[in-house]
């Protein structure tokens, strides 16, 4: 909300620099997002930093209040006049200007009453009024159609007040004006942009902010006048009110002004509306907006004659009720609306007049010919107004305030002050009395606050009178009884709960806020430390990350939202789509459902990186989301996925890089490394039928028969779809819980051998379909205790090995724990291995 300091000062004296005030407000929860200076220089307060402002500062000597005493014609130009300006000097300054709003005074001789205008002298810096781009200029003497000119009467644009350059700014006459007064002292102002959190409904007005300022600075608050001069015939019998939904519309008030003249508002009011970003319209509509911004109570003005005409001149009845199915309303913003059943409406017996508290209907609005104004100030249920604003997608200043909460007490204040301001600017007579229907009076909220509660929650001892004073500064009524405060909550504080405990917390926050959070001490928790425990799942997960990083992999974290179509790319053959957790309101179509796999993320990440990186070695650990039939909330199991693709080693100048692209066995080595790093023993690999994987290059990792995950080369069809077809893509996906659950935290270790090993090689020729794992299993079984290690070092096919066969060559390590083996012992075991392989695998020893 925009808060002009000049307006704020109507209600509270401010004796600190505006930058310090902004800091105080920010620390008290009314965050000042920006300070906008109009004409006056930025102040500097030690210890407070604000971004440097580059606004135009009106030089106190060179930009002053000017009094135009006479407007003379320009001898050589019809479109120019010569303003004779009194700027407090000894002579009048002849100033050439093309301002059209001076033409009517041309040649009229000395004026009875001067025209007041901002006056800039030679050397003054102003904005260039003729430039489309913001551009500053320094006034210099030059001839305008033959007449030398060195000064200027200014437009709003030239002063940086507004964009208007239609004519010069003419100020309404004031007897207090003195020519030559620095313009800073007349029009200079500062506007604070205050960001209001939802609990600060009470601050949605200048008066509301003033109340906070008064409390923070410990100054009295000056309320505006709510007196009305009521001289006309009574309102009774002119109009009736019929509230049908008292819970949604607890109060409805009306006043009537007869014989008003619609005209522009007085300049001070227009200026104030402009300062809060409102466009002045006419003196009646402007007052409704002014009261909205001044005290926070939105008003609505009806053309009373139009209301009467709808009922053939009879007495209108204002009805508030819920909308019915199919009802429509054409609102002031030129939208034809189909109403929802929860919308509360202001109607008469003939139909709908407005969307209650949010926006008026077009039919009964104020026009230039309006003579009699019926002014409405009502109170609405804030939850319902918010629903209406959201369902109708209409956001107005009135609706914004009502949707945060405006107390019913404000309606009476608003309708009184509003009608009086209309009378003052538009004339006419206010009908006696306020029509006030208030079926749901708001209860008075009182809270008892023992000061020990303040101490308990803030951790600071404040004496009872200090606490009472802090609350009273905010307008709370306080009676002190020993160490107990009886607090009477003022009506505008709708945020203070009637629940005794919550009400206490609400008040304690106010005490802390006004006292200053910075004055509350810093302490160390004195409470007993809760029982400490380990998050084993997280610790193991982090261990898995460390192992993967040690294997050279980069961690990815991806969007968890994707599309079913993208995940379907993982299946070479079309298949029925699984059920997804689907967004009702996706931000973009490509982030519509929660993922069921991490593989698409990794593939997309790899694809994006292939443009600049020759090797992809990445992993991600994170949740996938699986819908459940028996619960509205999905399962969120975690997965660990790895992707490898590209060059095994980037070529370098040494020419010694291991050639080739990453393949199945690189990934298998990583998987082995992961299992080793996690101390998972005894995992076995079986052929996997994972549909996304190459059927001949895919493995399933099993531990005691239970699956931990799959890995292998991506199916070429799938690889092609992700445009990664240049090299094989190796992927793994593990069930993280199963994987980490298999970790043995107290894994055992082996003593270091003290005896020398005996190394022997063996090459066995086996049939092509005999797996390496089967050969190794036989070797290990036959080798017994003395065989310490088996390492495959060669696989060979071709001459002289018969077709359909292959040769597997192994290094075998023999070692006994307690003695040095003799050649005879080794030969015996080695022979046994060979014989067993011959017998069980039909293997032959390669010659």
């Amino acid at each position, binding site marked *: 909300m925009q808060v002009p300091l000049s307006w704020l000062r109507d209600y509270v004296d401010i004796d600190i620099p505006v930058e310090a005030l902004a800091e105080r407000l920010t620390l008290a929860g009314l965050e000042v997002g920006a300070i906008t200076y109009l004409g006056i220089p930025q102040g500097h307060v030690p210890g407070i930093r*604000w971004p440097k402002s580059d606004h135009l500062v009106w030089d106190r000597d060179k930009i002053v209040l000017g009094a135009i005493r006479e407007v003379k014609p320009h001898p050589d130009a019809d479109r120019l006049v010569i303003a004779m300006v009194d700027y407090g000097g000894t002579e009048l300054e002849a100033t050439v200007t093309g301002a059209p709003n001076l033409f009517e005074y041309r040649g009229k001789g000395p004026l009875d009453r001067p025209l007041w205008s901002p006056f800039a002298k030679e050397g003054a810096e102003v904005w260039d009024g003729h430039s489309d781009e913001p551009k500053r200029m320094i006034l210099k003497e030059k001839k305008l159609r033959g007449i030398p000119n060195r000064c200027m009467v200014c437009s709003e644009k030239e002063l940086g007040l507004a964009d208007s350059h239609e004519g010069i700014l003419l100020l309404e006459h004031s007897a207090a004006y003195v020519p030559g007064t620095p313009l800073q002292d007349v029009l200079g102002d500062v506007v604070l942009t205050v960001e209001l959190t*939802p*609990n600060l409904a009470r601050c949605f007005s200048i008066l509301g902010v003033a109340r906070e300022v008064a409390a923070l600075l410990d100054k009295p608050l000056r309320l505006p006048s709510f007196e009305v001069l009521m001289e006309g015939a009574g309102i009774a019998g002119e109009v009736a009110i019929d509230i049908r939904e008292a819970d949604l519309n607890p109060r409805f008030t009306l006043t009537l002004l007869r014989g008003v003249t619609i005209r522009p508002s007085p300049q001070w009011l227009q200026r104030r509306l402009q300062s809060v970003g409102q466009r002045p319209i006419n003196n009646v509509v402007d007052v409704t907006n002014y009261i909205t911004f001044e005290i926070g109570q939105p008003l609505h003005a009806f053309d009373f004659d139009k209301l009467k005409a709808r009922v053939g001149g009879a007495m209108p009845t204002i009805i508030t009720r819920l909308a019915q199915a199919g009802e429509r309303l054409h609102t002031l913003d030129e939208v034809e609306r189909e109403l929802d059943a929860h919308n509360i409406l202001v109607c008469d017996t003939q139909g709908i007049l407005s969307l209650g508290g949010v926006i008026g209907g077009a039919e009964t609005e104020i026009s230039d010919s309006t003579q009699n104004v019926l002014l409405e100030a009502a109170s609405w249920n804030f939850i319902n107004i*918010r629903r209406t604003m959201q369902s109708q997608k209409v956001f107005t200043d009135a609706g914004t305030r009502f949707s945060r909460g405006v107390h019913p007490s404000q309606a009476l204040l608003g309708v009184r002050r509003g009608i009086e301001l209309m009378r003052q600017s538009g004339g006419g007579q206010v009908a006696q009395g306020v029509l006030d229907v208030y079926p749901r009076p708001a209860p008075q909220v009182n809270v008892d606050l023992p000061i020990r509660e303040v101490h308990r929650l803030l951790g600071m001892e404040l004496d009872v009178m200090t606490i009472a004073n802090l609350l009273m500064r905010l307008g709370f009524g306080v009676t002190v009884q020993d160490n107990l405060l009886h607090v009477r909550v003022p009506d505008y504080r709708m945020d203070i709960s009637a629940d005794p405990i919550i009400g206490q917390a609400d008040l304690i*926050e106010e005490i802390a806020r006004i006292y200053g959070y910075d004055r509350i001490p810093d302490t160390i928790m004195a409470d007993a430390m809760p029982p400490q425990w380990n998050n084993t799942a997280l610790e193991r997960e982090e261990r898995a990350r460390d192992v993967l990083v040690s294997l050279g992999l980069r*961690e990815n974290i991806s969007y968890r939202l994707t599309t079913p179509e993208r995940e379907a790319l993982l299946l070479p053959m079309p298949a029925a789509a699984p059920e997804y957790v*689907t967004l009702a309101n996706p931000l973009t179509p490509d982030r519509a459902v929660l993922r069921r796999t991490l593989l698409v993320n990794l593939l997309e*990440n790899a694809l994006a990186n292939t443009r600049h990186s020759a090797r992809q070695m990445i992993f991600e650990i994170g949740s996938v989301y699986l819908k459940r039939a028996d619960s509205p909330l999905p399962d969120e199991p975690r997965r660990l996925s790895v992707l490898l693709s590209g060059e095994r080693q980037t070529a370098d100048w040494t020419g010694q890089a291991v050639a080739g692209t990453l393949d199945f066995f690189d990934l298998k080595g990583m998987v082995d490394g992961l299992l080793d790093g996690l101390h998972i023993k005894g995992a076995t690999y079986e052929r996997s039928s994972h549909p996304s994987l190459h059927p001949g290059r895919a493995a399933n990792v099993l531990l005691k028969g239970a699956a931990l995950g799959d890995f292998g080369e991506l199916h070429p069809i799938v690889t092609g779809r992700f445009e990664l077809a240049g090299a094989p893509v190796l992927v793994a996906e593990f069930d993280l819980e199963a994987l980490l659950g298999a970790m043995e935290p107290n894994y055992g270790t082996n003593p270091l051998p003290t005896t020398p090993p005996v190394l022997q090689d063996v090459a066995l020729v086996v049939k092509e379909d005999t797996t390496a794992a089967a050969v190794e299993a036989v070797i290990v079984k036959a080798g017994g205790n003395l065989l310490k290690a088996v390492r495959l070092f060669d696989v060979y096919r071709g001459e002289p090995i018969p077709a359909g066969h292959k040769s597997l060559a192994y290094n075998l390590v023999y070692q006994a724990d307690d003695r040095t083996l003799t050649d005879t012992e080794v030969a015996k075991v080695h022979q046994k291995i060979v014989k067993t392989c011959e017998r069980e695998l039909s293997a032959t020893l390669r010659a």
Partner: protein
Amino acid sequence: MLEQLEQIYQEAQVSLAAAASSEALHEWESRTIGKKGAVTLLLRSTGQLPKEERAAFGKRANEVKELLDAAFAERETQIKEIELIRSLESGQVDITLPGRAHPVGGLHPSTQTLRELYHIWADMGFQVFRSRDVEDDDTNFTLLNIPEHHPARDMWDTFYTTTPGVILRTHTSPGQIRAMRELGENGTQPIRVILPGMCYRYEQITSRSEMQFHQLEGLVIGRNIRMSDLKGTITAFARRMFGAKAAVRFRASYFPFTEPSMEIDVECFLCGGQGCKVCKYAGWLEISGAGMVHPTVLRNGGYDPSVWSGFAFGMGPERMTMLKHRISDIRYFWGNDLRFLEQF
């Protein structure tokens, strides 16, 4: 034979001095004092001499052998030294040539920051409690004192799912309710946890805002937890995270689930509070929202708010990472561009 010995001795001395390499030296050794060397052979043939000559010849031959042995050892040392110097000279490489690249793995920057946060909070007795991403509306909002249609809901732009009442969590705060209900044993046990997790907001993705981001929430429940404890705890945290001299500022603010509520700023550690682009010339960086747990939330967690109290805080690991490493675009985090990841 004696003359022969002396002659060999003379020649051997000359040729030893001429031996300039290990090879030449060893060739000299085998030719002169080796098993079949001339001196050795002469020495062995002492027996063929007449008895009266044997003693004198033997003495002299042994003398010559010892002298040559010693000369050999000295020469060998010299040559090894020369050869070492020569080999060091010829073994020079251009040390400015690039090193051989090894694949280097690395953790995502968000993980690195999360670990730093886990570590600091663990030292203060906070355990990690994780809860689900897909939440019900009640736990994400209503139980946190944010009733349906309440204007406070405007503070979060929510992703709804097609299942009524099921949403993507907009913050980690629903974890507060879950932690209180799981760990509190019906409001009888104190709690000290941090709740990290991914959150989701229906927000246009720009360089400054993301639809998905981590949060790390903290929750303390006890019988005597005060706002001064919140201030002391956060200040202690900030000094570890941002430096021992970090100044911290507490501003009143609003969250429906805490009261009093506050925003916490740390003095800009990049400019020392003097004002720079990162802190937008304000000297302060917003690092956390916090407050005393609202009585309604305590009740919904099973605690009696007249006996129990607590505080909660929330912080953004990505935001902290961005501040620390001057990252200008939050979209880098889930983009997973290796050129970004490799910088951490």
